[in-house]
């Protein structure tokens, strides 16, 4: 059976295929410690949790321990394939430093305690503050890595029980703009694309989306198309020379913070050359005249001046996109975490509406997610939105939700948009939020301007609860730490970006006293004695399947209708795409067929926002603009970034991710193959910038902004001149200095980023800080950056990244291994 070093070859072997054909199956498998399939006691169905692609997989269990994984050949998402993080990341579950007992702070130290003591402390402080100040004192910050059932329960507790408006998820950092952009154009969240669009597209445009590293299996699908007959053309917008850029027909590398200008120039060309479907635009959209007027001034020459992309390249990209017969577009952090995030992402939707390329094979938009269960954070209301895409500013929606929950509508906060995490932090800073409950995320590494974040989280007047599986940087600052079970140790469902719902079953018991997040939340609701309007317990379930059944009722008749799904239906086969109801019992692959949107005023999730100020559009305005629920072509003017490079800080700093790590490395840093592939932070700079300063590969640099400093080894890469790149994964838990830099230099990229966010999606900006660099020490070897990815070296003799024998995984083309 063939084995491949999947660190050296992250995408594995090619299985070429042509347009309209089915993507061949290739089953990937990795078992630890030289075990073979004969040693495996049982295989337990699940899906991947260390990225957002939603690859179906089975967990191998031997002697009550997870020992490996295998891709599910029948799954519609991956056809058996797995990425390096799936193959190796599960090992973190077995890590000896898992949290196994609750901790409480006593005399400044976190000490072990029992569940009763810990939970009474949490519920007690919460009740105290509710009495003293009310729900405005309480906030919740969750993740994109729990399960649907947990999010729905959390949203119910926070919104329906406690009645606070301060609810958000770290999806604010990864997919808030995806949701916002979809709401602006289509009135509602929900992806107008399917992964099978890769199979038939003739043009694939990736906007700020390094798919090769963030969704390796989806990129494998693209690579297989590129290796087959009649391959698609690829358009890439990215300031770095990523694997996507290297495969692209046209690669545009704009100056950070100028995406709106570039997009408007593309639209200028597409409209100017008449590459639009006028009948579709007239029948199914509003706002064309305003869009046409807005982009008139944005010629390719203007784009050349502002974005520093040759006008000829802009024209070429517009021609490729404008002449596509089947256009698939995807977007991610290069747009979402950059300046004017939503305004730029919306223009991608506009291209599809103008070209009438929606709801047909090959014609999709994937406003991507960054995390495995981010879609559920959004759907279930754990990001602060109301569940099942209900509109907080539509009284009928709030009343309907109050009926489902059996609470007074006034109990559900809907007088203003939910308080996003950056605003929550502001309220903690000024002292009006005094209780923060964090589940499965690590803001002390992942949020911008870390010195400020630490100073807020460490305040005595803030009661911080952290529910996690490791003692993260954030957990170290907590008053109470609750040890949670993770993927493989609990059952639940989650949904990926193309609306595919997977069931993930419990394979093994959690370590020590760790408990599933759902159990902890239900326990909290019980201790807070949260009740519905008839005095019955508010949370009426205690196991995942009943939570799922309750969620189904909440989703009934809404765009993300789950009523046709059940655990039984999800068992055995592949994932199922929502909406799934009586009419569509097998799910729905394509939405927005024939220009039918969920955008009617009484139906839509949002009336939209102002693209510059972020002010919500009022219901009356929306009714006048879009009475029949068409797609909204939203125009946006360019506003320069808020921090521009100057004499003292001549570079633009962008942060980002690498293929081998996820988030703040809590799991991937504990998987040896992944950790060894990218063991330490590095900084990327272009060859010309390095030559100007006499820097060489591996030099130790001090990178600084007005907010902090980070030391990192220099990788001279294909990044555009004037720009620096730092991966954001590296914090302090494995440095010996705890939750902060300590006496040494900073390591976390977010020491440097600025506190600023897109006024529309409230997503923080990680891609436009002004920075400078100095050499601290000469190189004693190449930078610790992978060579297989966007950080590939362009100079010097850098040995290639490999994983050796420990990274050999099975690959079987055509079926089961």
């Amino acid at each position, binding site marked *: 059976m063939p084995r491949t070093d999947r660190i050296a070859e992250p995408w594995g072997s090619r299985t070429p295929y042509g347009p309209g054909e089915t993507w061949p199956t290739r089953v990937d498998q990795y078992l630890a410690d030289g075990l073979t399939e004969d040693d495996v006691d049982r295989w337990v169905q699940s899906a991947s949790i260390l990225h957002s692609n939603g690859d179906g997989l089975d967990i191998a269990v031997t002697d009550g321990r997870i020992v490996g994984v295998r891709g599910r050949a029948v799954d519609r998402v991956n056809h058996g394939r797995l990425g390096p993080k799936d193959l190796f990341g599960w090992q973190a579950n077995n890590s000896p430093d898992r949290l196994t007992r609750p901790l409480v702070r006593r005399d400044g130290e976190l000490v072990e305690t029992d569940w009763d003591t810990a939970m009474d402390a949490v519920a007690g402080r919460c009740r105290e503050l509710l009495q003293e100040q009310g729900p*405005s004192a309480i906030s919740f910050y969750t993740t994109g890595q729990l399960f649907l059932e947990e999010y729905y329960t959390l949203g119910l507790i926070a919104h329906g029980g406690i009645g606070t408006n301060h609810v958000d998820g770290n999806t604010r950092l990864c997919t808030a703009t995806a949701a916002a952009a979809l709401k602006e154009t289509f009135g509602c969240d929900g992806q107008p694309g399917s992964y099978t669009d890769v199979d038939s597209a003739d043009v694939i445009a990736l906007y700020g989306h390094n798919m090769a590293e963030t969704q390796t299996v989806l990129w494998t699908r693209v690579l297989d198309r590129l290796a087959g007959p009649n391959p698609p053309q690829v358009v890439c917008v990215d300031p770095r020379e990523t694997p996507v850029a290297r495969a692209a027909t046209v690669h545009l590398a704009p100056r950070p913070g100028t995406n709106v200008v570039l997009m408007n120039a593309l639209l200028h060309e597409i409209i100017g050359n008449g590459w639009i479907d006028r009948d579709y635009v007239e029948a199914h959209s509003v706002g064309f005249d305003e869009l046409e007027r807005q982009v008139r001034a944005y010629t390719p020459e203007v784009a050349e001046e502002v974005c520093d992309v040759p006008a000829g390249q802009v024209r070429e990209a517009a021609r490729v996109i404008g002449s596509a017969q089947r256009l698939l577009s995807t977007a991610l952090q290069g747009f979402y975490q950059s300046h004017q995030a939503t305004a730029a992402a919306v223009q991608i939707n506009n291209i599809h509406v103008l070209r009438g390329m929606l709801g047909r094979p090959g014609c999709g938009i994937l406003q991507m997610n960054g995390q495995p269960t981010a879609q559920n954070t959004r759907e279930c209301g754990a990001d602060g939105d109301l569940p099942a895409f209900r509109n907080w500013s539509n009284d009928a929606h709030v009343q309907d939700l109050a009926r489902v929950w059996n609470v007074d509508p006034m109990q559900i906060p809907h*007088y*203003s948009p939910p308080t996003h995490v950056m605003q929550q932090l502001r*309220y903690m*800073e000024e002292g*009006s939020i005094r209780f923060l409950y964090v589940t499965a995320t690590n803001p002390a590494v992942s949020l911008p301007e870390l010195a400020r974040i630490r100073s807020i989280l460490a305040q005595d007047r803030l009661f911080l609860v952290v529910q996690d599986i490791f003692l993260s940087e954030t957990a170290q600052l907590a008053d109470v730490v609750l040890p949670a079970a993770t993927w493989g140790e609990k059952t639940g469902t989650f949904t990926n970006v193309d609306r595919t719902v997977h069931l993930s079953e419990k394979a093994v018991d959690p370590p020590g006293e760790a408990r599933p997040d759902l159990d902890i939340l239900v326990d909290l609701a019980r201790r807070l004695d949260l009740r519905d309007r008839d005095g019955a317990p508010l949370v009426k379930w205690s196991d995942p399947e009943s939570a799922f059944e309750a969620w189904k009722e909440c989703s009934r008749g809404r765009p993300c209708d789950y009523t046709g799904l059940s655990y039984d239906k999800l068992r055995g086969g592949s994932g199922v795409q929502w909406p799934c109801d009586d009419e569509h019992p097998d799910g729905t692959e394509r939405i927005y067929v024939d220009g039918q949107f969920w955008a009617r005023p009484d139906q839509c999730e949002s009336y939209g926002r*102002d693209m510059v100020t972020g*002010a919500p559009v009022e219901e009356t305005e929306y009714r006048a603009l879009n009475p029949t629920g068409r797609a909204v072509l939203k125009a946006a003017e360019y*506003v320069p970034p808020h921090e521009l490079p100057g004499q003292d800080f001549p570079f633009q700093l962008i942060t980002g991710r690498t293929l081998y790590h996820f988030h703040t490395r809590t799991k991937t840093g504990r998987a040896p193959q992944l950790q060894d592939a990218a063991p330490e932070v590095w900084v990327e700079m272009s060859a010309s910038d390095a030559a100007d300063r006499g820097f060489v590969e591996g030099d130790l640099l001090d990178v600084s902004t007005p907010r902090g400093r980070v030391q990192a080894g220099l990788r001279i890469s294909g990044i555009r001149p004037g720009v620096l790149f730092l991966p954001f994964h590296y914090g302090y838990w494995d440095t010996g200095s705890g939750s902060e830099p300590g006496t040494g230099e900073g390591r976390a990229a977010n020491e440097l980023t600025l506190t600023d*966010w897109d006024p529309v999606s409230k997503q923080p900006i990680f891609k436009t800080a002004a920075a400078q660099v100095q050499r601290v020490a000469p190189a004693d070897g190449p930078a610790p950056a992978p060579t297989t990815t966007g950080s590939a070296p362009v100079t010097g003799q850098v040995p290639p990244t490999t994983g050796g024998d420990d990274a050999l995984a099975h690959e079987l083309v055509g079926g089961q291994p």
Partner: protein
Amino acid sequence: MKLDLAIEELHRSENHLVTVLMSMSDKHKADHEVFHVCRDMAGWSRRHVVELARAGRDFGVDLDPEASEDPALLASVRQRASELVGRRSTPGLLLLADLRHLYREAAGVSLDWEILAQSAQGAKERELLDLARRCHPQSLRLARWANAHLKVASPQVIVGW
């Protein structure tokens, strides 16, 4: 014909709006969205001042195309003060007062544009009407932002600790 007076008045009120927005931005530096969005919106008014100065020439008024702004020192003092009191809750009330003030200023400017647009139509001054059509929506957006942000901020300021 008093079009020159209407232009002059609008030039004055847009100019004033720049200082209102910038001083509000500086005063609330610790409130990041207020800080940045006010600065972005001040950019609109600065451009309106340029365009009004240009239009003024056709009607015999000599107007400064550059918006007059408070001295940089005053701005940095305000920003520093905001950072110093950023850990207290009193700036919240100040923010509500400032939003209320901004809303009224923006509404006033919007009415000035209304007057100019109506007069331009009456006088069949096409270019002036186009100018009003370009600029007026932005003062309305500004007022809407002030209103919307007041809705967001007030519950926490009033009901919060």
